[in-house]
């Protein structure tokens, strides 16, 4: 039986309560009659033979790329770059898709007699991975073969000696990327395309870039003009990355792009109720929900966080494309849309979101208030094609505990940003005046380079990620959040969904339309 497509449910009196993520817990909310609930397509059937599919993709590349074996020769300099742990979410069960792909590439390189191989985790300004995280990405065999010799590296956007400025785009954008990658005879980039934003020229132009380069598209203006950044052709973020990517290619950097897509089989069987439509919950699903939610409620926050972050997703690979960047990415994006896109007619006055415990920037960490804002307004709000799911001047209601808590090792500059920048202004354009001081702060630079800290400028990027939503919306309400933290974000706290809906009517009027984006799994609305 083929997987069912996405579905828009209209809530009636017989509709059971809707499940909302609420950080490390859940809420069941009875939505008003007439509300719409968007359910994602069911997980697509996975590739029966992912290793064979990878091998075929490498041998039969897309676009004008030559098969990978023909690009490999003894004495050449080969660099394999790969995405960091910001995806997939939650981390997938071993073997990770990156491991499967990189093993194939290394096998071909070995067959061709390539000796000079370096692996680089393309983390841009994200935090460095721990050894355990790196082992999870590439597998023990690769880790043990490369890491001891220093051949398994993490991109360092502050290592001036290992960056190279390739020039300016015709829009005056600096293109500065990892020198080893840029000066290799071949750069193979291994992607996991969890959402439509990932991949394409963004892989190299962002993942291997420096702050000097990133600042041209990671800013409030660009994000306000990306409508949305999940829709490449209407995304200024992508337009800028494409300019940079083409300049990288013109500079002589030969990129062989490998992109993989995953299905949305996100949680293990005991948490499968999360992905099911509530009226279809079996007795086992109900028992799983009760057991999980009760246990999480009674568990201290820190332990609950540890438990949830230890969850490994049973994601399976649905496609793999390799070859020339743009040809590969066009196919990949279609495959992502096939898994995630749901057609929706018309916008809504109120959009409700249940936010989980994890986002791309708090893997094995704390979801601090800035990340809550970014996940809701940066990611979920932008999960649309065509028009935003919520109308201009509408309201987003998010459910999350939003604790005033930060991981001091992972997010040191976030603490200062929250305390000292957001206390002054929440306007994405205004906060930009502090950006350079944070970006060049020697302590943040030190922690980024030597510890496991996000770069000093990263909280600004998170806030810029919200810029389109903040410009578009009439109000943002967080249900069940730490009231002081929610207010610091510039949002309105509400104790219950009923209170939030009442507050929202002050902005959008009486009898508003309401749409709930039911996630997990990942879902994207194609709004007509």
């Amino acid at each position, binding site marked *: 039986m083929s997987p069912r497509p996405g579905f828009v449910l209209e809530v009636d009196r017989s509709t059971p309560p809707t499940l909302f993520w609420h950080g490390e817990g859940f809420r069941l909310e009875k939505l008003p009659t007439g509300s719409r609930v968007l359910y994602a397509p069911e997980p697509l059937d996975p590739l029966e033979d992912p290793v064979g599919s990878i091998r075929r993709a490498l041998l039969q590349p897309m676009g004008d790329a030559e098969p990978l074996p023909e690009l490999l020769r003894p004495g050449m300099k080969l660099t394999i770059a790969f995405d960091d742990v910001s995806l997939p979410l939650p981390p997938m069960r071993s073997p990770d898709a990156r491991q499967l792909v990189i093993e194939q590439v290394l096998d071909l390189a070995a067959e061709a007699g390539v000796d000079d191989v370096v692996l680089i985790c393309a983390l841009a300004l994200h935090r460095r991975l721990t050894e355990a995280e790196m082992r999870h990405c590439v597998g023990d065999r690769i880790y043990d073969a490369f890491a001891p010799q220093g051949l398994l590296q993490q991109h360092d956007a502050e290592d001036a000696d290992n960056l190279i400025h390739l020039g300016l785009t015709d829009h005056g954008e600096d293109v500065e990327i990892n020198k080893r990658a840029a000066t290799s005879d071949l750069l193979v980039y291994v992607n996991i395309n969890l959402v439509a934003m990932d991949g394409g020229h963004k892989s190299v132009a962002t993942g291997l870039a420096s702050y000097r380069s990133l600042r041209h598209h990671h800013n409030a203006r660009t994000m306000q003009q990306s409508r949305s950044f999940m829709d490449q052709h209407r995304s200024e973020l992508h337009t800028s990355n494409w300019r940079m990517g083409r300049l990288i290619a013109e500079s002589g950097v030969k990129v062989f792009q490998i992109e993989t897509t995953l299905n949305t089989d996100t949680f293990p069987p005991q948490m499968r109720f999360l992905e099911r439509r509530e009226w279809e919950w079996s007795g086992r699903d109900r028992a799983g929900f009760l057991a999980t939610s009760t246990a999480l409620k009674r568990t201290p926050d820190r332990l609950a966080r540890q438990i949830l972050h230890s969850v490994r997703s049973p994601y399976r690979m649905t496609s793999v494309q390799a070859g020339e960047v743009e040809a590969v990415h066009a196919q990949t994006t279609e495959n992502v849309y096939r898994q995630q896109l749901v057609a929706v007619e018309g916008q809504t006055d109120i959009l409700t979101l249940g936010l989980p415990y994890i986002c791309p920037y708090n893997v094995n960490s704390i979801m601090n208030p800035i990340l809550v804002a970014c996940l809701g307004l940066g990611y979920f709000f932008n999960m649309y094609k065509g028009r935003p799911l919520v109308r201009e001047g509408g309201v987003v209601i998010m459910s999350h505990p939003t604790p005033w808590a930060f991981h001091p090792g992972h997010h040191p500059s976030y*603490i*200062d940003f929250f*305390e*000292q920048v957001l206390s002054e202004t929440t306007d994405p354009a205004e906060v930009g005046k502090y950006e350079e*001081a944070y970006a060049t*702060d*020697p*302590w943040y630079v*030190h922690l980024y380079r030597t510890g496991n800290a996000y770069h000093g400028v990263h909280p600004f990027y998170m806030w810029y990620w919200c810029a389109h939503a903040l410009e578009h919306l009439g109000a943002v309400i967080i249900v069940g959040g730490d009231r002081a933290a929610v207010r610091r974000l510039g949002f309105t706290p509400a104790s219950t969904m009923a209170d939030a809906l009442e507050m929202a009517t002050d902005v959008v009027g009486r009898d508003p339309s309401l749409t709930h984006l039911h996630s997990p799994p990942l879902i994207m609305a194609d709004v007509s």
Partner: protein
Amino acid sequence: MKGLLVERSVPRFAAARLVSSITGSGTSAGVGPLRLTDVEAPALPGPGWYRVRPLLAGICGSDLATLDGRSSRYFEDIVSFPFVPGHEVVGVVEEAYAAPDSSDAPRALHGPALAPGTRVVVEPVLGCIARGIDPPCASCAEGRVGGCQRIAFGHIAPGLQIGFCADTGGGWSQAGLVAHGVQLHPVPEALSDDDAVMIEPTACAVHAALAAGVEPGDTVAVLGGGTVGLTTTAALRQLATPGTLLVGAKYGHQRELAGELGADLAVSPEQLTRAVRRRSRSLTSSGHLSGGADIVVDCVGSAESISQSLAMVRPRGRVVLVGMPGKTSLDLASLWHREVSLVGAYAYGCERSGAADRRTFDIAMEVVAAAQLGRLVSARYPLERFEEAVSHAGAAGRRGATKIVFEMHPRSPKGPAS
């Protein structure tokens, strides 16, 4: 006449210490050494002395420390019991012992002649001149009465200040106090009583701000947002030219006031080190900033605040202790290793201003006027409600207040914010 009196009573001090440690500062008035009683007007000790009728008298952190039984034993020999507290006083001259001219002593030793009815603020330190010690000690000879070396000697009882001396009385009494002419400063008409009662604490702040030795462009951090912290912030902004003035204050209204008084940034105390680090673009090692503030002014005086000050001052920087510390346990390794100067700043006297010396109180009056520091007076209480007043002062920050004062003869519409 009613007055508040502190008597030497070990059980009462012990009870106060116990109660305040459980229920908070200022809550032990019922069991502690302070009681409302009939007090006699103190006798005028000699030529040059005046009787002053208080109008307003502030409740200071050092008063609270005494009433809470938390004062250092260091003060035992420089306090005489029983005493009427109150050393932040604006009052009216009622009577002179004798006209200064009738004395054989040089006029300069007596200060200006003051007519009855003159509104004055009291400079409470009982230095050599007030004590009739001639020649005065080296500090007093230089006008630096805060450093007087004879505060336990002379013809009046020991007591570092009016308000801690058995012979002089203090501000918390309708019977008034006695002060030497050199301790009295006429208050300009332009200053209200609220402004005037802030002159003494501001003089402490002025002395601290000048003792800090701020160079133009320095990064200065002030730790504390109570009366001392806020007046110090105002003094630093008025009298020095710091490049950046950062304040760590616990409560929102304190941070707001700090901003109004000249702080470039006011944050919560636990955020101050981070703010200093960012401004100084320092790294962090062993819990200390690699660079840090050029000067940290500690207006709290606790072990925690001193430790934090040492952690955020730069090597060879200076920590100025303005808040009154007690017996404290500290790790001073960083002070030694980083060659940090830890200096105290107590009271006032004369300050070097250009080529000349000026009385600290004269400078303080200008700062009070310019910064409108009378606004820091949050509530006035009659003596009869002393328990409420002291409790309010002990919880001033938490209750949105700054300075709590006693009003001897209520006549203003400004009432206690209870």
